[in-house]
């Protein structure tokens, strides 16, 4: 007996089972790794630069600032002009070759940073096109992340909103089995509405956002229509309600 028939069937099943969600999952994992690498390289480079010009390195502790300042040239002369600090330094005097190595590394770091932006832009495009309702409720970055955590859009659709509320807080959820309070929110905590909400209402707001996330993904997967304006209108009303609740209490 030949196994070709089985192979054909299995191959077909795999191909049918793949969807744009898999692309989203891979891209977001890629973007996360890029960011991790970016931070590691930045830390090392900043450390290296600290040896050469500690006065400047001290002022460039943020990654994006560091890249922007050092991208063109990183010798003391041009940097001291850029940051308006004294060219006199207590750092070790590196020779030209070392400085060249430094600037090469900064350029590579900048490339990685650009690549991550490209990946994120592509992710945003996919989310906007495929899940307009979810994108309206959560924003593209959070949408991608929540699909990544759920595994796929259809499994996200099947989740109750209480589960969506704590997606990304699995560790705290397991800790709750051993007599600890259950978490109030997972990745939803990073939603922009949550920034403006006082601490004591964040749990309630997370519930509202989770409920509308559930509604939005159901609309996206099942009816495939863009009803984002209606959903957003309703959601903002509920958000206002919760905020007022604080004033009363």
């Amino acid at each position, binding site marked *: *007996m030949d*196994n070709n028939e*089985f*192979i054909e*069937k*299995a*191959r077909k*099943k*795999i191909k049918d*089972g793949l969807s744009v969600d898999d692309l989203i999952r891979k891209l977001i994992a890629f973007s996360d790794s890029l960011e991790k690498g970016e931070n590691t390289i930045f830390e090392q480079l900043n450390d290296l630069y600290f040896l050469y010009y500690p006065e400047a390195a001290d002022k460039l502790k943020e990654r994006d600032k560091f890249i922007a300042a050092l991208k063109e040239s990183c010798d003391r002369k041009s940097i001291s002009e850029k940051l308006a600090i004294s060219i006199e330094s207590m750092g070790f005097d590196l020779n030209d070759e070392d400085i060249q190595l430094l600037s090469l590394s900064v350029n590579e770091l900048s490339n990685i940073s650009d690549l991550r932006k490209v990946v994120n832009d592509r992710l945003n495009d996919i989310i906007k096109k495929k899940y307009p309702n979810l994108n309206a409720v959560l924003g593209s970055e959070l949408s991608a992340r929540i699909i990544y955590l759920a595994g796929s859009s259809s499994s996200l659709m099947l989740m109750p909103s209480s589960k969506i509320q704590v997606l990304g807080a699995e560790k705290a959820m397991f800790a709750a089995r051993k007599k600890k309070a259950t978490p109030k929110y997972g990745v939803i905590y990073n939603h922009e509405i949550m920034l403006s909400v006082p601490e004591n209402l964040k749990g309630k707001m997370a519930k509202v956002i989770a409920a509308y996330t559930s509604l939005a993904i159901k609309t996206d997967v099942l009816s495939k229509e863009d009803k984002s304006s209606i959903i957003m209108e309703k959601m903002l009303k509920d958000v206002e309600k919760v905020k007022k609740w604080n004033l009363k209490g």
Partner: protein
Amino acid sequence: MELKRIIDRVYWLLDRRRTLVTLSAYGGDSVYGEKIFNLDGKIYREWVPYRSKFAAAFYKGLNGVDIKDGYKVLYLGASSGTTVSHVSDIIGVNGQVYAVEIAEEMAVNLILLAERRKNIFPIVGDARKPENYPSIPKCDFLYQDVAQRDQTDIFIKNADLFLKSGKIGAFAVKTRSINVSLDPREVIRNEVKKLRSKFDVIREINIYPYQKDHSLLILRKK
């Protein structure tokens, strides 16, 4: 180096330490990075206990099991085909191993393996629903390694449908998947109780330290 037979096509390679090997049925390609030995013109593949629970059981004292050339094997939870490749060695080119795997990314590797090893029949599907498999014959050996809470029920269901009576089923129980809080020995005892009505329990092998919280049950269908 010297070979000591355990069952057909499975040997201990006795050197300074013993190494479990299978006689390769399909040439000298390394499937998952295992070592290849060439002795007297025959090719043997190392069977790594840390990668395969079946191999670990041999290291922990399993000295014979009814699986041999030409057998039909149903393998549930094939993953990327690490253990499957050794089972395919054991049953040889005349045997058939039906390998079921649900996770797509793992199944891709399995399919690629099946293209090289013609006695592997890949099935992408859920072991919980054996009625959905493509039509397969009754098998002489059942191996299951799925880390699911209802793994015992899955085993019983599949054995009912596809295992010939009097034949052997090997069942890798992951106690952590069934109940985290209960003592592992207690969990095994409960599972064995469920299996008693349909199977004779021949051996129970705890495969620590190769895998944590795992046991391999060797069962004979009544």
